[in-house]
């Protein structure tokens, strides 16, 4: 627990890495998704959900856990305002991972994924909330999330998979056609990623042969000229094939964009549990069990422009280190309006505490796509505190990121057998 502050910093650095990767994209003069050749062009940019652990340490009064599309590894940060009202490093940080997908992903086939969707969409989250000032308590939480239904998951859509497969088949046929014009690989070739316009690297070979003949070698001038003519003809052919492939790539971009636009609000069901511990100070002294919570939330589409989210949350929490633990039940609903990348929402929530006190919350806000892999979520509203029965203004702002890189480049070629 002494490492709470270090953990917090490590998470901040992790978030910073995501931001750094995204910042280079921000230099694009127009809509980044329209820039050719950028890394995010084919990544589906569906909203990043809040994690159960983050919800448990978050000061956010809303208990709504919106079911949204599964991601392998995400982070969240909130509470950027310091004691003196200035902007500061976030005091609440969370990470959510899909452990089985991360562990098995490399050799995971579509069939295996579809047969075990619950397992591969299962996510584990951790979050930390650092108290204000020296000696303030720190909260740590761990959460588990199950998504038995997720209609936004591209891997489980037969239509999408068929559309994409049709394009890859067309690309493959171009590759075979261009390869057949040359012949089999030689013993000097290695397996790897190829350009279908020149799968055997013929342009490079011709270029090398040309460069091996000195320009002033008059004895080989005819040979040089013949090579030059062949190279120019091949380059013209290659650029024609590249245009063919580029058109197919554009089809993939269109299929993906349509999927994003049409599927962002489709139905989903999430069940999650989380537990948190509280320490007496930021150094991790005197750790104690602080809260246990469970969520069951469902999402349903409203045509192609809206989504209704509704569900139930139960929590057993203590308000301070010395206070007894009490049950709280929350029933909540939210209505989202807009599109995948920009949407507004209203939320309403009713609460009942074990001490028979009732509370309520009404919220409105927006979820905004900032950059690929970076989303912002802000809300403001009114809360009726169940303890003092007084109304108060509540606000929330959080940033959520996907990790831009997960695996280092793997060696190409033959994988040694373990048997």
């Amino acid at each position, binding site marked *: 627990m002494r490492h709470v502050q270090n953990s917090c910093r490590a998470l901040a650095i992790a978030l910073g890495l995501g931001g750094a990767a995204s910042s280079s994209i921000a230099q694009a003069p127009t809509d980044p998704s329209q820039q050719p050749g950028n890394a995010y*062009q084919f990544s589906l940019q569906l909203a990043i959900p809040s994690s159960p652990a983050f919800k448990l340490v978050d000061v956010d009064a809303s208990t709504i856990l919106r079911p949204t599309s599964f991601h392998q590894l995400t982070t969240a940060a909130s509470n950027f305002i310091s004691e003196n009202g200035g902007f500061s490093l976030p005091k609440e940080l969370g990470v959510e991972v899909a452990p089985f997908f991360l562990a098995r992903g490399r050799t995971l086939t579509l069939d295996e994924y579809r047969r075990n969707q619950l397992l591969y969409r299962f996510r584990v989250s951790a979050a930390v909330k650092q108290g204000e000032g020296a000696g303030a308590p720190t909260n740590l939480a761990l959460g588990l999330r199950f998504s038995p239904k997720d209609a936004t998951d591209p891997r489980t859509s037969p239509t999408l998979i068929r559309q994409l497969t049709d394009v890859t088949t067309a690309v*493959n046929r171009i590759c075979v056609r261009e390869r057949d014009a040359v012949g089999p690989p030689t013993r000097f070739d290695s397996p790897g990623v190829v350009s279908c316009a020149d799968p055997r690297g013929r342009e490079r070979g011709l270029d090398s042969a040309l460069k091996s003949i000195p320009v002033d070698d008059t004895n080989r001038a005819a040979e040089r000229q013949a090579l030059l003519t062949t190279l120019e003809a091949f380059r013209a052919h290659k650029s024609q094939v590249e245009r063919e492939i580029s058109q197919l790539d554009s089809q993939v971009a269109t299929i993906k964009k349509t999927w994003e636009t049409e599927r962002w609000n489709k139905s989903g069901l999430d069940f999650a549990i989380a537990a948190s511990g509280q320490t007496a100070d930021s150094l991790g002294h005197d750790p104690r069990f602080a809260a246990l919570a469970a969520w069951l939330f469902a999402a349903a589409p409203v045509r192609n422009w809206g989504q209704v989210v509704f569900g139930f949350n139960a929590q057993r929490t203590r308000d301070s280190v010395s206070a007894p633990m009490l049950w709280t039940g929350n029933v909540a609903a939210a209505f989202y309006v807009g599109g995948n990348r920009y949407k507004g929402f209203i939320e309403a929530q009713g609460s009942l505490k074990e001490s028979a006190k009732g509370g309520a919350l009404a919220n409105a806000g927006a979820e905004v796509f900032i950059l690929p892999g970076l989303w912002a979520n802000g809300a403001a509203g009114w809360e009726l505190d169940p303890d003092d029965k007084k109304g108060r203004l509540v606000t929330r702002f959080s940033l959520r990121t996907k990790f831009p890189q997960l695996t280092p480049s793997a060696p190409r070629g033959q994988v040694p057998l373990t048997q």
Partner: protein
Amino acid sequence: MDTIRFDSEGGPLFADIRSGFANPGSYALTLWKRNSNSKAMKDIEGNFINAEDDRHQLAGAAADNDGRIVECFVTITPLGDPKQFFASMRIIQDDAVLGDISVADETTSHTVTVDLFALLEARAE
């Protein structure tokens, strides 16, 4: 080029094609004759919609494959973010994996094509 050795007296050879990270895609399997530009069997096209039909027998008895090159173009559309991909061609004889030619990486493109190939060679007696 990698060489995969097999038992010329054993059962027929199979090529098993896989795409990881639950990515969709297609492939084309080619078997080249020994020291030749001609093919030992008709190209086989397949995709990763179902994994059960991605194991293909190489033409002829095992011994016929000595000196042949087996090649597979695999084109993938990575679905995740980051856009990771993994393509593999395993050569199997009598249910034993003799070799696994694979490529794993991340891409910036909509589609990525990987060329997997190996020389098949009968084990010396």
